[in-house]
């Protein structure tokens, strides 16, 4: 269980990215964090594993206070939190296998990792994870030879090889096309359920968040403005989070699951036909 209490972050530039956020994520819960750009979503999950040092507040994972850890203790704690990135953050020039195995860096010593002699159990786990995410046989491909969706699968495998109890997921679909986005989100949800993992997923696509998350937290200017189930996202709530806009096209019934043959148009794009006359008038 992850407990965030009064977390605040002020950057040296004076920007207050977080203003006292408190949250509790129980074991196995998939939570989506939505909000406009600059709301502090990215800062929030980076404060959890202290890639960004919080200015105030406490974060504890399964009872251990993460904000007070020494460097060594922090490294140990980071092993229990897998992170998945927007731009995948794979080591581009290394092979898929080396990328996945880099998830074990917190467990193995420097020389073993330098010589790429990881314990046999780790390698076996990596093989089965690659199979699970649908990349069996890709071990020796270089990461920069993969497509976006494949890279994100490698990123997921790397995070899971850490054997985490919590996943921190930062905009996993922002660099992907709509169909791949759904596949990745579905994969994430399945894996979390299989392993009883909690996850915090930063996502700007509200429809995707509704589809795949059990709980949604809306962040605005560093403060929580909504915390509730996915189907509680009404037009009013979205207006509170993002500001005034016509939200009727965005909100979807929460029980609708994205399926493989979903339309290629992202659901939040208005399906209004293009006004050719107006366009012509502009030219």
């Amino acid at each position: 269980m992850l407990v965030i209490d009064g977390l605040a972050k002020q950057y040296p530039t004076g920007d207050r990215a977080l203003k006292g956020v408190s949250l509790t994520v129980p074991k196995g819960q998939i939570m989506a964090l939505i909000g406009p750009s600059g709301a502090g979503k990215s800062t929030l999950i980076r404060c959890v594993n202290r890639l960004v040092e919080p200015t105030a507040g406490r974060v504890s994972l399964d009872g251990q206070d993460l904000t007070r850890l020494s460097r060594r203790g922090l490294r140990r704690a980071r092993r229990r939190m897998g992170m998945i990135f927007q731009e995948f953050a794979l080591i581009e020039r290394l092979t898929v296998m080396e990328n996945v195995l880099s998830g074990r860096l917190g467990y193995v010593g420097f020389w073993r990792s330098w010589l790429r002699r990881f314990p046999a159990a780790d390698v076996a786990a990596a093989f089965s994870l690659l199979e699970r995410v649908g990349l069996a046989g890709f071990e020796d491909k270089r990461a920069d030879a993969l497509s976006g969706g494949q890279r994100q699968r490698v990123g997921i495998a790397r995070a899971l090889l850490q054997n985490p109890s919590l996943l921190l997921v930062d905009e996993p679909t922002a660099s992907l096309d709509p169909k791949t986005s759904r596949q990745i989100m579905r994969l994430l949800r399945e894996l979390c359920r299989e392993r009883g993992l909690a996850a915090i997923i930063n996502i700007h696509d509200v429809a995707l968040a509704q589809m795949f998350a059990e709980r949604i937290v809306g962040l605005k200017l560093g403060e929580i403005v909504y915390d509730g189930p996915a189907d509680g996202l009404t037009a009013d709530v979205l207006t509170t989070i993002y500001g005034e806009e016509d939200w009727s096209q965005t909100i979807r019934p929460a029980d609708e699951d994205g399926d493989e043959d979903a339309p290629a148009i992202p659901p939040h794009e208005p399906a209004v036909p293009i006004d050719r006359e107006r366009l012509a008038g502009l030219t």
Partner: protein
Amino acid sequence: MPVATVAGTKVWQRRARGTQFAIWLGWLAATLVVVLSWNVISERTMWMFVEDAHVQAADLLGRMVPPRWSYMDRLWQPLWDTLNIATLGTLIAIVFGVPLAFLAARNTTPSRLLVRPVALFVIVASRSINSLIWALLLVSIIGPGVLAGILAIAFRSVGFIGKLLYEALEEIDDSAVEAIQATGASRPQVIGYAMVPQVMPAFAGISVFRWDINIRESTVLGLVGAGGIGLQLEASISQLAWREASVIFLVILVAVLASEWLSARIRHAII
């Protein structure tokens, strides 16, 4: 293949055994070359002197400080000469380097078979030979003095400017060239309208960059008699007047820093 199946379980290795072996062999060979090279140097070194180096260094330092500041008065003229060597040398190099670049670039050369190889050889010859060696040659041919220095700088810089400019020419955007060609323009017009504007910033940057390098190089040309502040350095060192030499070192340091600052400012203004 890094992935192999041994006794039913998959085994992953970073590289296949053969590749790994070849890599180790490569490292071994490289190490051997370095060790052998070191042996040659070691044989030709008087280790007695090397062991004595810290004494020599301390002695040298003791003789260099305090610098004889009054010597500064006699350095203004050489400093002016140094500036001229660098600047005039760069200008001459631009005059000859720019046409050379157009002859060497694949997309502007009049003939790929005849002209281009010659232009490329001129560029490589000019670049391979350090300006000090050009100076050595020119001093021997036309006698010591500022002129030899200017020409030495020019000879070395022609290749530098030519190479960087022809590479910039070969990397330009072809669509603009096509667009101008489509208007029915002649070849010189295509070069003037579509190519020159595209390489202009690169050209300005290259010239200023080379001028900055030339200031550095012209400070030492005097060591072989080609004018500038290096002449004074040569004189001071041969008379073992290290307190004068240390003044010259400081002057060179300041000159180099100033030219670096100036060229950075100019490049910033251009780009």
